[in-house]
């Protein structure tokens, strides 16, 4: 059996690492802009919106890619509970990657705030004007972002655990630069 069968296909690896960088950047921009009253605030906000929409598009591309390029099976040595945890945490990551941009978009719609991506490129509102709904969506956006950050930490910790302690090839199946 070729070594490739134990790795994610190249398109999946590319999507994973591009999105990893974008999402990590997004989490830091998000927490930074929510705290900032400095001159950087405007730049952070104007990057946050198009970056969020780019992530939304890429996660859809990624879900489609997943149907055509299946991920490799986990090694048999992994105990059942860890398998379930791995599956659940990946489901949660996908759900959050989809939900956060959509909740952000919905929140700005409910505020009736212009959703500018770049220059004259705007997004249409997806919800009617309703400030109470805006307030709820704003809290939801915040809590989901914290949850995504924690899930990301767990994901990173698990990847390092596989790579440094179990040394079972799971980290290498994604963290491989060979074609």
């Amino acid at each position, binding site marked *: 059996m070729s070594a490739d069968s*134990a790795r994610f296909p190249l398109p999946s690896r590319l999507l994973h690492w591009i999105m990893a960088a974008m999402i990590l950047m997004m989490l830091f921009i998000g927490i930074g*802009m929510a705290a900032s009253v400095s001159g950087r605030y405007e730049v952070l906000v104007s990057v946050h919106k198009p970056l969020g929409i780019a992530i939304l598009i890429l996660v859809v591309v990624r879900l489609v890619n997943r149907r055509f390029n299946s991920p490799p099976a986990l090694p048999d040595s992994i105990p059942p509970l860890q398998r379930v945890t791995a599956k659940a945490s990946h489901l949660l990551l996908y759900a959050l990657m989809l939900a956060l941009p959509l909740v952000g978009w919905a929140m700005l719609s409910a505020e009736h705030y212009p959703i500018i991506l770049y220059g004259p490129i*705007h997004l249409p509102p997806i919800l009617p004007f309703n400030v109470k709904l805006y307030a709820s969506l704003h*809290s939801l956006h915040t809590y989901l972002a914290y949850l995504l950050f924690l899930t990301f930490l767990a994901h990173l910790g698990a990847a390092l655990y596989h790579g440094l302690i*179990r040394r*079972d090839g799971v980290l290498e199946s994604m963290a491989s630069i060979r074609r």
Partner: protein
Amino acid sequence: MSDHRVQNISRKPRLTTAAVMARFGIIGAVLLSVAGAFAYTGGWLSPNRLTQARAMAMFEQAGGRHPGFRRNHAKGVCVAGWFESNGQAVAMSKAAVFKPGRIPIVGRFAISGDMAFQADKPATVRSMALRFMLPGDEEWRTGLNNVPVFVANSAQGFLDEVLASVPDPVTGKPDPAKMKLFMADHPESVRAIAVIMKSPLSSGFADAIFNSLNAFRMINAAGKSIPVRWAAVPMQPFKSEEAAQTASSDNNYLFDDLIEQLGQHPLLWRLVITIGQPSDPTNDATLPWPADRQQVDAGTVTLHQVSSEETGRCTDVNYDPLVLPPGIEPSDDPLLSARSAAYSRSFTLRAAEKDEKSPSAITPADIKPRGKL
């Protein structure tokens, strides 16, 4: 396939317990560093950094907690009307708002401070906020004040001023010691206050000049970018503030005058755009531009209808100065970011507090008896 990896594992030497502990240590250190960087970015590790949450707390510290109200310029009324553009600003900005024609406006008059029920006073900064309801996706929101320059050039400077100006409960005046400290820390504010004191104080909202204070940039169809500031200049004759008004027992005299005037006739302001020279500061709202700068009259703002925040359409609007149409862009003034961030946080807080809000100082009953509108 799985055999292949099982073999892989078996090929690697077993880790000693010490090596496993060391590796867990490395993983822990990596996770802690990432979490630490996140907490640092969010301001949790820097108690002295001015964050949005701390800025909001400082307004409350100065003026008390008034749930459901704006954290600054809390006392206000809604107005409605339109902007009639004369087309003269088209050469400076490609924004659709400057093409000849009429654009509806939802506006708001207010006085500065977090105190939603404070008594009107002549020296309290008055504001006019305008939302130009452009067709399509474009929108322009701007908040203007009746002072020629802003009292501060940074968020920290402004909040220091807000806290230093809190009236002492005994004397009713700001604590001179605190004011002195503030002045020593902020020479730019000392200069700005001198400019503000020199400008004549009008009797009300209707005869006040409202200034953008911050600089912006206008971009025309050819892509040329110029620094600008703008102002709403009243067409109502100027009447100077009289001591009689100050002595008035009516806590809402500024708003009551406005309601009475709007009950009789619309109020008009010219929208005047001042074009800056390259040498004019765009990043410091405490500095006036020279008086001889070219000014362009872009059209007339007509306000004809007033309502209480209870029923008006301005209540749920965030007059964020960074909501700009293509053709108007922010300048390098850091206060624009600060205002945008603070307004946004204030909006989020009051949106969540909507059910807790008590009726605004100016109620629908204050308006109805006077108006035909």
